[in-house]
C-alpha cells in the first residue's frame, strides 16, 4: 500500500529530499517557507538517514555551505523565499561556474523589497534568466501541486547530478503553504563516501595517490581558458534545452485560444479552461513544468493552431516575454497578472481572455 499523507507543500519537498537520499540541508528561516527547515529538524534527519540539517546564520552562509557539500559530491539543498534567494545570487553564480549539482527551492513571495508574504511569481526572470553575474542557466522546475513539490525533490537531484547543474524548484507561497494528498515512495539510500568517490571523480574527497588533486574553482584569469569554460557551459545548456523540456497540455488538441501558465496560475487557468468550455470557448492550457528549458517548440506548434495566447502570471509580465519569443509573432500574445500577492480568480482570467481576443466587451476588473 502506498504511503499517502496530507502535507503542506513545504513539508512535502522536505520529505521528498529525505527519501531521495539527500545528504545535507542548510537553510535559514523566511516566510513563507520556514516549514522546510522546521520539518527537517522535527523529523530528526540524522537519525532517519544520517542526513545533516543545519540552520545557518544567513541565506548567504546557507548557499556557501551548499557549495562546500556539493563540491564533495554530496546531495545538498537549500531553500528560501525571494529576498533570501536574492542574497544567494552570488553563491548560485559560483555554483554555476564550478558546475556543482544541488537543489534550490524558492517559495516566491510578493516583491520587490520586503514586499509581502503572499504568493507571487515575480521571480521568474531571476530564476530563468539568471539573477547572478555571468552567463549561466539553472534547470527551473515549476510545481503546481503538493505532489509535485514532493516529486521534484527526486527529479531535481537526478537532473542536477545527470548534468552537473543547479536545479531550482520555483514554487510560491500558496503551493508552499497549502495542504494536499501526497503519495510517498520508498527510501532511496544515501550514497556512501566510496560510491561518491567512484561516481563523481571530480569531487573533493581527499587527494589519494591514485589521482591528481581535485580543485573546485570558478576562477581562471586566462581569458582563453575562461572562454573555453564558458563555451562548454553553453554547450551543456543547449543539450539540456534539447533533452529536458517538460510541460503539460490541458485540452489543447482542439483549442482556439490558449492560456500559458505555470504553478498556481496554471491551477487557476485549469478552472478557467472548464468555465470557458462551458461558455462555448475552445480554450486550452499549456503548463510549462520546466521554465528552463522552456517549452518553446510546443508553443510555436500551438501558435499555428490558436488565434491568441494569454500568459497568466502573478507578476507584471515576465514569462510572457518567453511566450512571445517562442511564437515569434505568429499569433498575438497578451499578459494578465495580479500583483502584490493577490491571486486572480478563474472567471477573472477567462474574462480577460475574452475581452482581449474574442469580444470588445471588457469586464469590470476585480478591484478590492
Amino acid at each position, binding site marked *: 500500500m502506498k504511503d499517502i499523507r496530507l502535507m503542506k507543500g513545504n513539508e512535502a519537498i522536505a520529505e521528498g529530499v529525505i527519501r531521495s537520499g539527500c545528504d545535507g540541508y*542548510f537553510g535559514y528561516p523566511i516566510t513563507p517557507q520556514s516549514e522546510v527547515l522546521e520539518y527537517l529538524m522535527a523529523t530528526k534527519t540524522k537519525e532517519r538517514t544520517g542526513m545533516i540539517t543545519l540552520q*545557518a546564520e544567513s541565506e548567504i*552562509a546557507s548557499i556557501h555551505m*551548499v557549495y*562546500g557539500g556539493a563540491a564533495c559530491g554530496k546531495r545538498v539543498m537549500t531553500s528560501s523565499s525571494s529576498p533570501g534567494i536574492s542574497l544567494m545570487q552570488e553563491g548560485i553564480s559560483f555554483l554555476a561556474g564550478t558546475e556543482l549539482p544541488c537543489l534550490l527551492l524558492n517559495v516566491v513571495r510578493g516583491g520587490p523589497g520586503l514586499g509581502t508574504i503572499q504568493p507571487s511569481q515575480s521571480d521568474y526572470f531571476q530564476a530563468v534568466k539568471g539573477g547572478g553575474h555571468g552567463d549561466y542557466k539553472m534547470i527551473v522546475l515549476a510545481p503546481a501541486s503538493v505532489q509535485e513539490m514532493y516529486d521534484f525533490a527526486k527529479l531535481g537531484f537526478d537532473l542536477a547530478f545527470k548534468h552537473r547543474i543547479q536545479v531550482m524548484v520555483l514554487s510560491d507561497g500558496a503551493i508552499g503553504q497549502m495542504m494536499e494528498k501526497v503519495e510517498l515512495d520508498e527510501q532511496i539510500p544515501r550514497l556512501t563516501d566510496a560510491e561518491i568517490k567512484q561516481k563523481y571523480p571530480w569531487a573533493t574527497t581527499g*587527494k589519494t595517490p591514485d589521482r591528481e588533486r*581535485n*580543485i*573546485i574553482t570558478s576562477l581562471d584569469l586566462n581569458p582563453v581558458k575562461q572562454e573555453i569554460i564558458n563555451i562548454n557551459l553553453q554547450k551543456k545548456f543547449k543539450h539540456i534545452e534539447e533533452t529536458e523540456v517538460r510541460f503539460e497540455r490541458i485540452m489543447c488538441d482542439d483549442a482556439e485560444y490558449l492560456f500559458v501558465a505555470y504553478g498556481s496560475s496554471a491551477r487557476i487557468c485549469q478552472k478557467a479552461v472548464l468555465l470557458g468550455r462551458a461558455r462555448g470557448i475552445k480554450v486550452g492550457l499549456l503548463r510549462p513544468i520546466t521554465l528552463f528549458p522552456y517549452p518553446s517548440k510546443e508553443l510555436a506548434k500551438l501558435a499555428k493552431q490558436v488565434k491568441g495566447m494569454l500568459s497568466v502570471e502573478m507578476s507584471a509580465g515576465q514569462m510572457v516575454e518567453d511566450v512571445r519569443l517562442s511564437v515569434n509573432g505568429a499569433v498575438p500574445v497578451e499578459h494578465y497578472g495580479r500583483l502584490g500577492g493577490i491571486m486572480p480568480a478563474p472567471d477573472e482570467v477567462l474574462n480577460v481572455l475574452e475581452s482581449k481576443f474574442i469580444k470588445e466587451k471588457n469586464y469590470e476588473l476585480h478591484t478590492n
Partner: protein
Amino acid sequence: MSYIPTREEIIEDHDNVVYERTCLLTDNPLSYCPGCGHGTAHRLIMEVVEEMNLQADTIGVAPVGCSVLAYDFMNIDMQQAAHGRAPAVATGIKRLMPDKFVFTYQGDGDLAAIGTGETLHACNRGENITVFFVNNGIYGMTGGQMAPTTLPNMKTATSPFGRDTESMGYPLKITELIAMLPGTYYVSRQSVHTPANVRKAKKAIEKAIQYQKLKKGLCFVEIVSNCNSGWKMTPEESNKWMEENMFPYYPLGDIKVPK
C-alpha cells in the same frame, strides 16, 4: 684533524638533507610578491599536513584575496570560496565529511570584513574546522587598500592620508573576539618572519590540526604577516615595521589553549 668533505660530496648524498621543500607544495612558482609571508605560511601548513600523513584526508578552502590561488600551490584537494564565505564552505564540507581534516586559509579582508558573519558563526557553532588567518593589515590582491586590521594613521590606497579612526573606525581584533566564543577550542597568533617565530608558528599549526581530530571545536591560527608591496617597503623593512607597529596591536602568542 677530521676529514672535511667537499660541497659536492655533501650535496650528492640525499641523507645529508636537514631541510627541504615539502612535496605537498606543487612545483608552480608562488604568485606572491618577493618576501611575502603567504609563501612561508603555505609551506608550514603543508609541511604539517605531510608530516601527519593527512594528504588524502585533507580538504582546503581558499579565499578571495592574495591567496586566492592557494590551490595552485597546495597539493591537496581544495575548493575556492567566494569572498568571505570560506568558513561557511568549510562548514558544509566538515558537516558532510566529518572524518576529513578541513581548513580555511583566509586574509584579513576576507575573514574580518565581508566574511565577519561567517567567521563569528562558524566559531560560535564550534565547527570542527581549522582556520588559518593571515593578517597583513591591508587588501593586497586589489592593490593595497585599507582593511579592518589596518592600523590607525596607516597609509593605504583608500586611506591615503592615514587611517583616521574618527571616520574609519579602529583595527578589528577579530582573533580576540572569537577567542571569547565557547565554540573555539584553540586560538593562537603567530608570525613567520624570523626562524624562531617560524618554529613557534609551526608548533601552533600542528596543534591546530591535531586538535581538530578531538572534535572539540574550532581551531584558529592567526599569522601576522608583512605586505611589503602594499606597505611600500623592502621585505626586510616590512618585517621590522611589523614588529614595531603591528605586534603592539596584535600581540603574538597563544590566546586560548584547551584546559
